[in-house]
């Protein structure tokens, strides 16, 4: 469960480059809900995920995850509640470390890391099983360095890593944007499988209207740091990409004085 209330984030406050990335954003996500997030460049999508993960700080408003107020928590502390896959395949893993070392890092998310061995037989067996589910042959390459993998393989492993510690909230920031169409489709499919199987609460940012409608159960659009529409249920089912684009244009084209106009 996620609850973001009246959150404001400003970059470079008091400088000529002052940028109000989030301007009183509200969003509630129920347990097990899979929300897709759209919006033009600079709308604040990544900042929203950063404010959830702790990479950006809310200067006003509150952020709750699983009923806990985490507004003041630093990123590492929030990792016990939240897992994340980045847009850049390089960002979510350590290329200098091996596949199994990356997985061991993720498996220990949210627990104390002591002086026990990071890798042992049972863990390697578990990682091998998990990797086998990807069907990419990575189960035989546990000791290969992460840097040897392709972007798609790395995103697939990143997704797998996000599930190892049993956290229930998953943040995905255009995690297929850097991939070719076929690989992107594979990673999206894997995302859906993982979210379903583990009953995760997920927020997925995407630049593809098609993907936004095809995945999850609810779609929100951000514009200038706020949620400008939020569709679900029958209304969303009836929508196709052109409808969504029309909504998108309406919001961007004219300065809306009242968001409810859109939703009525």
């Amino acid at each position, binding site marked *: 469960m996620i609850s973001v209330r009246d959150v404001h984030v400003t970059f470079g406050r008091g400088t000529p480059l002052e940028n109000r990335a989030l301007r009183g954003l509200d969003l509630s996500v129920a347990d097990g809900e899979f929300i897709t997030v759209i919006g033009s460049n600079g709308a604040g999508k990544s900042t929203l995920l950063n404010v959830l993960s702790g990479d950006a700080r809310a200067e006003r408003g509150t952020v709750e995850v699983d009923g806990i107020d985490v507004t003041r928590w630093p990123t*590492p502390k929030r*990792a016990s509640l939240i897992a994340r896959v980045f847009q850049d395949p390089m960002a979510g893993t350590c290329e200098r470390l091996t596949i199994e070392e990356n997985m061991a890092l993720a498996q220990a998310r949210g627990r104390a*890391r002591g002086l026990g061995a*990071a890798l042992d037989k049972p863990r390697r067996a578990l990682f091998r099983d998990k990797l086998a589910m990807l069907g990419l042959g990575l189960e035989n390459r546990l000791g290969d360095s992460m840097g040897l993998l392709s972007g798609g393989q790395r995103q697939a492993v990143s997704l797998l890593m996000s599930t190892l510690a049993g956290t229930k909230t998953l943040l995905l920031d255009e995690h297929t944007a850097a991939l070719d169409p076929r690989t992107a489709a594979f990673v999206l499919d894997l995302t859906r499988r993982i979210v379903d199987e583990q009953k995760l609460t997920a927020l997925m940012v995407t630049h593809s209207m098609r993907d936004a409608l095809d995945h999850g159960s609810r779609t929100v659009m951000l514009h200038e740091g706020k949620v400008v529409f939020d569709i679900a249920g029958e209304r969303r089912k009836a929508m196709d990409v052109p409808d969504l684009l029309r909504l998108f244009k309406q919001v961007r084209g004219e300065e809306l004085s009242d968001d409810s106009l859109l939703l009525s």
Partner: protein
Amino acid sequence: MSLIATLGAIEIGLVFALVALGVYITFRVLDFPDLTVDGTLPLGAAVAAAMIAGGVNPVFATLAAIVAGCLAGSVTAWLNIRFAILHLLAGILTMTALFSINLRVMGVPNIPLMNRPTVIDFFAWLNPLIAMTGLPGRPTLRVLALLIIVLVIGALLARFLKTEFGLAMRATGANPRMARAQGIRTDMHVYVGVALSNGLVALAGALFAQTAGFADVSIGTGTIIAGLAAVILGETIFRTKSIVVAIFSCLIGAIAYRLAIALALNAGWLGLRASDLNLVTAVLVGIALMLPGVANPLRSLFKRSAP
């Protein structure tokens, strides 16, 4: 080169193997180019020598030197983390302060330790073995004692880097944003890593004082470059990235480097003097960095200055 000179080169190489391990932790594991060590090596020597000269048990004196080195490293990490001072500058600040502190610790610029008890005495049980080989007693004992210490510490470090805590430290250096997203407190790992690195270098200083028989405020100059030279040389000899091999290659690199220096200084036709050591080191490291294909540690010095 004479046997005594060779043993002497190996001895100093073993001392610098510990420096190389320290440099490996900061430059390679943490990606935190730390220049504090030019001050930490003489700090370790100063603390150990002052305490031994004052009648303290050499083991305690050596442990105190390690603690002092860890503290110095923590100051550098603190300057960098708490005040966002560039790591290079933070290290230079601490190093500069240490030059004064070291003089305070010693009281005089040079403390001789001739005929004082040292940690080497605890290895006297090796003497009968050495006697059987016919090698010169005292120098051989020093080499063997240092070898044992260095191997034990190298093994402990390799083990440490394979623990959950050590792996988290490696992730901190390799990809700090990812590390934080995985729940790793990267600041804490930088503190521990830089402290550990400087603790190792201070230990090298303490052992230097006890094997060379003196501590001097000036012994620190060029420590960082000598440590880097050992790391680079080791990496050039062994080209794999596994932790155990990397640590072993630091040790071999340090010894090979000292032997090469000794040979160069020994070759009369080159016309080099002992005081040319830093010049020779700088030229060698410079050449190593120019070579293609050699992992370039100076790259990491500049990498982080970009936003």
